[in-house]
Structures are given as structure tokens and as C-alpha cells.
């Protein structure tokens, strides 16, 4: 039997000690727990389909320097924070002083705030499922803390542009913590982009602590390049009568993994998770979602669509756990998949664990190809094959793209989707 591969000790050392002491202490503690962390293999249940895409080397353990120039002079329709290789770049960021809302780099926190944060960081996540969040916990060198006081409303979306520049091999560990006070509201857009060509690892963690009655929208757009292995985790804790809405749009890469974990801890909480993934060439994308209905009277609605072309591989694993006290839970999970070529692969798995007896829980998963009858109907009206293919493929995800509540993000997503179509469907 082959020995289980372990995370190289090279990955345990953070490069810079430029955060307040309580966060450094936390990081050190997390690093010690990472020693000899087993790496996932195909026998690891939650990495079964994806372990083969994980290719770590010691030179990727080095922290990527955050001193290069950012490619993002891009205007965004809202407030903007730019992270380069996991470190906030204040010169590239633009947001005003806002009433009841603070947006700060971890590096700028005073000791009290850093102490308070160190007690919460990681608390939204089940690290046994999102193993690589531990690596982020041991390696983050900065992060963004967003605090909304009770009743505070962010009037425009906040964009966080996470850029990774891989001019040489290395890794980056962006981290975001959102503390949404009672009845507060905000829309957070996270865009992951990259430059350079050296193989790099990006290990992200984003957390939302959503208090009573708060209403938070999270949009995540993953558009990194072919040199980036991306392993991200998002954790959400929802208190009474809160609402959380997530829109993830992901484009494939050599390794893409996103764990999204939502815990409905207060009665009447509501969550809506939408996801779109497209992969082509030999790309990969793996979405693992987990919704925990802990309290009674909560609603969850999840809709994910995967489209895999060429020889690419998409994975969806949707877990719903309804705890014993979570009576009157209403959970609806739906995953549809479209295979555009016979060489493509999609694996989908619903996992339901229900311990309460008075619940509604629906789930459905399908895998199919473009419908020949629909295609014939379109071309019989003079529409070319390529356009007909694009119309039908887009129809598969239209509804989800249309629901993204920020127009600029819809446009960015559409532009990238059009590039995907151009590569996938050649003009006949």
C-alpha cells in the first residue's frame, strides 16, 4: 500500500509577520495543527473526483510577493478593494468613510479588534470538509474585515478584486471576514483574476457572520488562468430571520474547488445559493456545498448548473443536513448538468441527512446533452448551427445569470461565457 501523501512542511511557513500579534498567534497555532496534514487522494470521499487534479510542489509553498503592480485600474460600479497575492493594496482601493460600516485590512486593526477577530476567524467553517481552509489559516498574511453596525446599509456593491500574479511559482491566501450586524445589508462581489504563467496555488477563505434580520448578497466570479490551482472556502452563519444569497460563476482551470457551507442557526433564516460552472479543454471545477438546517422554520433553495465541454470535468456535491430540532425546514436543491462532448465528465451527488420528521426536502439532479429536437427546430428557421448551439447552451444557464443582481457582473460573466462559446462551438 502506498503511504498517504502529506502536505509538505514547506507549506507551513508564512513569509511575513505584518499583522497584529493576536492574528499572528492564531496563525502559528493553526500551522502547528497542519503538520503532517494528509493530502486528499481518490480514496478521500470529499475529494474523490478531484484529488487527481491537485498538483502541489515545494516551490509553490513560497508566498507570492505583494509588491508587483496590480493590473486593476478597472473602474467598478461600486466600492473597490484590491488584493494582490493575498495582500490588500490600499493605493488601488477606493471606498469612502461610511456611516456604520468599517472596511479594514487585517494589518490595520488595533489590538482589541484583532483579538476579537482572532476568536472568530474560521468559526463559520467545518474544516474537516474544507480541509484547505486550514492551510489558509496557517498562511494568511492579510485579509479584509468588513463590519456593518446594526441597521447599516451599504448603498453600493463592494467589489473585492483578488488578483494573483504568478511570475514565479508560489501561493497566496486571501481572506475576508464579514460581520453583518442585525438588520444590516450589503452586496459583496469577489472577483478572482490572475496574471503570469508560473504554477501557483490560491487558497481562499471568505466568512459571513450574519446577525438577526441581516440581508447579505455574495457574488463570486472565478476567472483565474490556466496556471492557477484554486481551492476556496466560504462559510456562512445565519441568525434568526436573516437572508443570505449567493451567486457563484466559475470558469474551469487545472484545479478549481469551492466549498460553500451555510449554517442556518436562527429560526426563519433563508438562504439561496445559485451556481454556474463552465469547463472546457482539460479543465476541472468542483463545487461542494453544505447547508445545515440547525434551527426550525428555515428555507434553503439551491440551484447549480454545470456545463462541461471537450475533455473537461465538473463536479457537484450538494449536502443538506437537517438537524433534529429543525422542524418545518424547507430545503430544495436542484443540479442540472450539460455535457457538450462525449469526452467530458460530470459527477453529481446529492447528500441528504434528515433527522427531523416534519420537513420538506426536495432534490433533483440530471445530466444531459443538448436536445436534438430543439436544435433541429432552431436550424429549421435558418439559424446557423453555432448560433443554435450557443442559444441552447445559454438557455441552460440564462435564468441563473439573469438573477445576478449586479449588472456589471452579469456583463463580465457574459463576456467570459461568449469566449467559452467561441472556443467550444466552431463556425460550421
Amino acid at each position, binding site marked *: 500500500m502506498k503511504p498517504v501523501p502529506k502536505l509538505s512542511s514547506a507549506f507551513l511557513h508564512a513569509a511575513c509577520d505584518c499583522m497584529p500579534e493576536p492574528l499572528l498567534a492564531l496563525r502559528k497555532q493553526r500551522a502547528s495543527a497542519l503538520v503532517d496534514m494528509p493530502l486528499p487522494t481518490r480514496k478521500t470521499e470529499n475529494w474523490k473526483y478531484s484529488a487527481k487534479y491537485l498538483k502541489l510542489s515545494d516551490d509553490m509553498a513560497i508566498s507570492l510577493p505583494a509588491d508587483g503592480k496590480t493590473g486593476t485600474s478597472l473602474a467598478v460600479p461600486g466600492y473597490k478593494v484590491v488584493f494582490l497575492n493575498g495582500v490588500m493594496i490600499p493605493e488601488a482601493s477606493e471606498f469612502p468613510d461610511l456611516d456604520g460600516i468599517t472596511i479594514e485590512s487585517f494589518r490595520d486593526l488595533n489590538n482589541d479588534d484583532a483579538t476579537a477577530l482572532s476568536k472568530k476567524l474560521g468559526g463559520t467553517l467545518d474544516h474537516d470538509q474544507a480541509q484547505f481552509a486550514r492551510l489558509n489559516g496557517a498562511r494568511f498574511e492579510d485579509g479584509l474585515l468588513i463590519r456593518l453596525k446594526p441597521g447599516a446599509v451599504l448603498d453600493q456593491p463592494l467589489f473585492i478584486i483578488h488578483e494573483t500574479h504568478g511570475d514565479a511559482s508560489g501561493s497566496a491566501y486571501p481572506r475576508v471576514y464579514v460581520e453583518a450586524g442585525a438588520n444590516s445589508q450589503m452586496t459583496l462581489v469577489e472577483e478572482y483574476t490572475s496574471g503570469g504563467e508560473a504554477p501557483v496555488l490560491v487558497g481562499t477563505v471568505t466568512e459571513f457572520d450574519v446577525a438577526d434580520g441581516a440581508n447579505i448578497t455574495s457574488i463570486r466570479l472565478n476567472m483565474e488562468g490556466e496556471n492557477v490551482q484554486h481551492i476556496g472556502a466560504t462559510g456562512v452563519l445565519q441568525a434568526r430571520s436573516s437572508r443570505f444569497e449567493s451567486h457563484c460563476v466559475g470558469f474551469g482551470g487545472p484545479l478549481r474547488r469551492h466549498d460553500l457551507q451555510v449554517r442556518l442557526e436562527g429560526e426563519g433564516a433563508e438562504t439561496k445559493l445559485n451556481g454556474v460552472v463552465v469547463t472546457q479543454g482539460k479543465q476541472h471545477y468542483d463545487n461542494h456545498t453544505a447547508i445545515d438546517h440547525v434551527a426550525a422554520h428555515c428555507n434553503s433553495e439551491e440551484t447549480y448548473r454545470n456545463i462541461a465541454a471537450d475533455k473537461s470535468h465538473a463536479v457537484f456535491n450538494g449536502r443538506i443536513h437537517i438537524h433534529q430540532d429543525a422542524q418545518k425546514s424547507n430545503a430544495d436543491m436542484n443540479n442540472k448538468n450539460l455535457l457538450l462532448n462525449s469526452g467530458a465528465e460530470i459527477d453529481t451527488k446529492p447528500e441528504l441527512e434528515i433527522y427531523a420528521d416534519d420537513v420538506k426536502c426536495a432534490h433533483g439532479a440530471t445530466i444531459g446533452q443538448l436536445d*436534438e*429536437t*430543439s436544435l*433541429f*427546430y*432552431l*436550424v*429549421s*428557421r*435558418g*439559424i*446557423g*448551427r453555432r*448560433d*443554435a448551439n450557443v*442559444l*441552447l447552451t*445559454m*438557455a*441552460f*444557464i*440564462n*435564468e441563473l445569470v439573469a438573477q445576478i443582481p449586479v449588472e456589471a457582473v452579469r456583463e463580465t460573466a457574459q463576456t467570459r461565457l461568449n469566449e467559452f462559446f467561441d472556443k467550444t462551438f466552431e463556425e*460550421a
Partner: protein
Amino acid sequence: MLSIKNLHASVEDKEILKGINLEIKAGEVHAIMGPNGSGKSTLSQVLAGNEAFEVTSGEVTLNGENLLDLETEERAREGIFLAFQYPVEIPGVSNLQFLRTAVNAMRQHRGEEEMNAAEFMKLAREVSKQVDLDPSFLKRGVNEGFSGGEKKRNEILQALLLQPKLAILDETDSGLDIDALKVVSDGVNALRSEDRAILMVTHYQRLLNHIVPDYVHVLAGGRIIKSGGRELALELEEKGYGWLGIKDEEDAGN
């Protein structure tokens, strides 16, 4: 305009069309009648280019050009239009987007400029009214949740927008109540012109009260066994298909 010579076609190795011969000239309206299973729909599908059907021999030309060499979309651009017996529902593609893409594909083929969204919207609204379809249907998914009658009207709407040379109507009357039949027939009659031909495929003759054909053909067992004028349809109505010594599977079943 359309010339079919000794056309044989099969589906999954079963021969359905066993030697069809038919000549249709511009300006003419032809009706093909026949019992269920006679090959009526197969003929429509083969003309439109459905690859599920294999043409094993014979020849079809449209204005002298070999139709069978053309892809489905090329046939459409050359002027073939098939109104489907069962129009397809395509959720996620709006009717408007579908229609505009089709019209612009045709315009591009003819070397004309594409219509912009506003121009097209205006045109589509006008034509919707002509087939008594509320313009709100333009914003819905293609045929999504449309009733049978609404789907058929949407087919005629497409024919009016695309202005084909040869419109093939496959059982366009099926599932229509008398009011919808009138609307659809008016739409088809609006299509009649000197440079356009219409081929109607139908089981019953009631459609022919509204759209009066120049010629009627009876298709049975994959062949046209009788041709005549309008009066042939009336005779069939009176005497049934049994009169011609053929069995109507549907009638037999009932």
C-alpha cells in the same frame, strides 16, 4: 418550384416513403391528405432536413437546386419553412431572441443589413397582432407554456416573419378550436402569393374549408395514390379513406 421525384426515405431502417412524385409550382397551394402512418409527417420532415430520416433514393429540387445536398439551415435560408406539428418548447431562449436571430440569419444570407432590436420589436409586435397573439408572448421562452393553439399561431407568426418560398404546414389544424383555426387560416391565406407555394399536410379536410387548395393528393403506404382538385377532399370527407381501399389506422382504432 418544388420537384420531388421517386423519393424514398427510411427511419431506423424502416422504409416510410416508397416513391413520392410531386410537382409544385409558385403560387399553388397543395394539400396532402392521408390516414395516420401514411408518411405525411415524414415527407414534411424530410423536406425540412431532419437527419433522423434517411433519404435512400430519389431527388428533390427547389427552383432547380438539389435540396437534399443542403443542410437544414441552408434549406431554410433558400426558402423552405416547416410549421411543426408539435412545435418545440425551448425554455431559456426568449421567443423574441429566437425570432430575431432567425430573421437576421435570413437577412444576412440575402446580403441585407441585420435588424436592430428596436426595429425588430416593432415588426414582431405587428405580426403578433396579425395572428392574434398577445405581444407578451414575445418575451416568454420559445413556446414555453403555450397552449396548443398558441403554439400553432406562433408557427404562423414565424412564417409571416420569415416569408418563405415554400411553406409546409404539418397538421397545422390539429388541436385548434374553431376560432383559432380561423386565425391560423387567415395567417396562412395572408401568405398566399404568386411567388410562394404552400404545402399543407392534414388528416382532416376541415382546414381546407378555410384554406382552399388548388390540388389535393392522397398519401397512403408511402405513395401518392390519388391526386385531384379540391373536390377530392370533399369526396374523402364524405366517403372516408376506406373508399380508396386504404385503412385509416386512427379510424380503425376508434
